[in-house]
């Protein structure tokens, strides 16, 4: 794989790195200010106390936990999808994996910080290490999320090495950054073999970790005795929801970046078609889980469960509950099921509603159960404060800022993988396809027939 070839073919992928424009500066400034505001709000929360939120007795958890679950869910977009596609040798994955992995790393960092936002004494967060109790689902979360973060960072980084080497070789500034990160990559066969091996290991490793992350997050809720939470299907339900929202987020990111960086050459209709079919499948799967979850609650008719059920279905949370159903099921299925509407704008709308819908789902899981305690307290009420909204905005801004910065310094589409696809995969795939096909008819049966 020689660097010269790429320059001619995929040089447009490096445009955003080699010549950053006004757009970049404006974007970083606006986003930076939003993030800064969120930090100011957070320091106010630290100084005054969690009272600046809208949390109360009994709704002790609110936006922070909702967003924690939501962001971590989005993070499944990436690494999991990219790993599964790689593992299954889906050739159309090549222009997608990098973006998916970036989403994971950025969003995971944001999501993982949310429990810290939620702490009454954030300065004591390290008590988790000095006095941690491994029996607590929160500790499982800490371990699993940090493992996932480590794995997905490595998994993002390793396949980036050849691309960084290209940037280093092209003399892109800051040179020290690229020469440091390129780790002496020369593209030798041994290096390539090691790289291939490392990617293979990571992609196998990352799948169970990713599944564990959202399973364990669901356990935070499912391990309690609270009505609406104490459910055995919460693990898979959360994983499905996470992948669902992850794909939607990935699609949105792809559509937006395709537009901004004019990646039409790489991200083609077929990619969106495949991914949106996957999204459609996940929408149906999500509906199946949701249906099972609520039907069992309803059929059992346990009073405490029913109180939560009616709170969602016909009570104060009805707009959010039915909004969730519309956003997660009706809209995406109606759009994606028909080829006529499965256009890129259509897919964008569907993905957007799914992301909103999945956020509503997290809200529907966290708040109603807390607002309807068994203990005879009056029904709780939760209205997020300006601080919580500000932190939500800060979280989203951090996500976009992460992408802007990444795009400024690294290629959003894996150069070498695309190249590899061009050079090797066609032949390789043809050969592989050959193996899937039935063996050609031979005279063998007759031979066998005769004794």
């Amino acid at each position, binding site marked *: 794989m020689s660097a010269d070839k790429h320059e001619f073919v995929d040089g447009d992928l490096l445009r955003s790195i080699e010549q950053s424009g006004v757009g970049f500066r404006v974007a970083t400034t606006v986003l930076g200010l939003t993030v800064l505001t969120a930090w100011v709000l957070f320091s106010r929360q630290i100084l*005054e*106390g*969690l*009272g600046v939120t*809208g*949390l*109360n*007795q*009994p*709704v*002790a*958890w609110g936006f922070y936990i909702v967003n924690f679950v939501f962001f971590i869910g989005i993070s499944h977009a990436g690494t999991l999808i990219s790993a599964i596609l790689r593992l299954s040798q889906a050739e159309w994955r090549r222009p997608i994996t990098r973006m998916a992995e970036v989403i994971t790393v950025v969003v995971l960092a944001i999501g993982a910080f949310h*429990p810290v936002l*939620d*702490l*009454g*004494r*954030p300065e*004591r*967060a390290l*008590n*988790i290490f000095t*006095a*941690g*109790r491994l*029996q*607590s*689902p*929160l*500790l499982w979360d*800490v371990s699993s999320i940090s493992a996932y973060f480590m794995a997905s960072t490595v998994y993002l980084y390793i396949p980036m090495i050849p691309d960084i080497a290209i940037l280093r070789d092209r003399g892109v500034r800051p040179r020290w950054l690229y020469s440091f990160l390129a780790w002496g990559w020369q593209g030798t066969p041994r290096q390539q073999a090691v790289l291939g091996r490392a990617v293979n290991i990571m992609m196998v490793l990352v799948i169970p970790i990713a599944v564990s992350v959202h399973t364990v997050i669901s356990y*935070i809720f499912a*391990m*309690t*005795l*609270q009505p609406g939470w104490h459910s055995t299907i919460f693990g898979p339900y959360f994983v499905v929801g996470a992948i669902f929202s992850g794909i939607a987020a990935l699609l949105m990111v792809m559509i937006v970046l395709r537009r901004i960086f004019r990646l039409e050459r790489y991200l083609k209709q077929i990619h969106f078609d495949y991914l949106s079919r996957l999204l459609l499948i996940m929408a149906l799967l999500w509906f199946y889980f949701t249906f099972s979850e609520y039907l069992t609650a309803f059929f059992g008719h346990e009073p405490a469960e029913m109180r939560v059920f009616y709170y969602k279905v016909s009570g104060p949370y009805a707009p959010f509950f039915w909004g969730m159903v519309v956003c997660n099921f009706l809209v995406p299925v109606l759009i994606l099921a028909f080829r006529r509407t499965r256009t890129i704008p259509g897919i964008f709308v569907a993905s957007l509603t799914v992301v909103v819908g999945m956020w509503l789902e997290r809200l529907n899981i966290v708040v109603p159960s*807390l607002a309807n*305690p*068994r*203990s*005879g*307290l009056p029904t*709780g*009420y939760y209205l997020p404060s300006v601080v919580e909204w500000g932190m939500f905005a800060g979280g989203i801004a951090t996500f976009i800022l992460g992408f802007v910065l990444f795009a400024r310094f690294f290629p959003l589409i894996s150069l070498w993988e695309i190249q590899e696809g061009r050079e090797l995969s066609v032949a390789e795939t043809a050969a592989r396809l050959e193996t899937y096909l039935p063996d050609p008819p031979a005279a063998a049966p007759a031979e066998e027939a005769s004794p």
Partner: protein
Amino acid sequence: MSRWGMAIDLDRCTGCGSCMAACHQENNLTAVGPSEAALDRVFHWLRVLPEVSEAHAEVTVTYTPQLCVQCDKPPCVRVCPVHATYLSDEGIVAQIYARCIGCRYCMAACPYNAKVFNWYEPQWPGQLQAKANPDVSLRYKGVVEKCTFCHHRVLKAREDAALAGRGLRDGDVSTACEDSCPAKAIVFGDLDDPASRVSRLARSPRASRHHEDLGTEPKVYHLARKE
């Protein structure tokens, strides 16, 4: 070793709220004020809750003191990530304020809503802090707190008993709510002592525990005539 428990006789309880007030004073709780109260952040370790029930078209309201039921299998202890809440040897579910990180997982996990959180620094208007009970530590913002079964009184009673050269006897330890109850509806004591008043009440056919079906094995028994 004692296993502390409480029996609240609802046939005696008049819902007068004395237990609530006594607990507030004894344990250095503070008022959150009207604006915070409007945000549902009122703070009680023990509260008297009205319970409305409809049976045979007759509506009845009972007023029930509710406090931490000191589960033998406490859901809050199971979920705490930092050992800030634990079950003591004597069956009291305790909270270590200095270690609590304020994640409120225990609050979310407690089916009894027995835990409360300091959303802000506790306020002591004027010189009110001068009346603080020196036996009970003051709390600060960002930590969860809860009923301690007046553990400081247990310690004191044990010291007094040791000075008198004997072990603890039934009635040596009383909680603040028990002391103040004009109906003598609250009885505190050792559930492991079969002769103690509380264990006798706990064995009464009138006794039941809140959400017994959850398997939390509470040590607070509510007694009421069964209908």
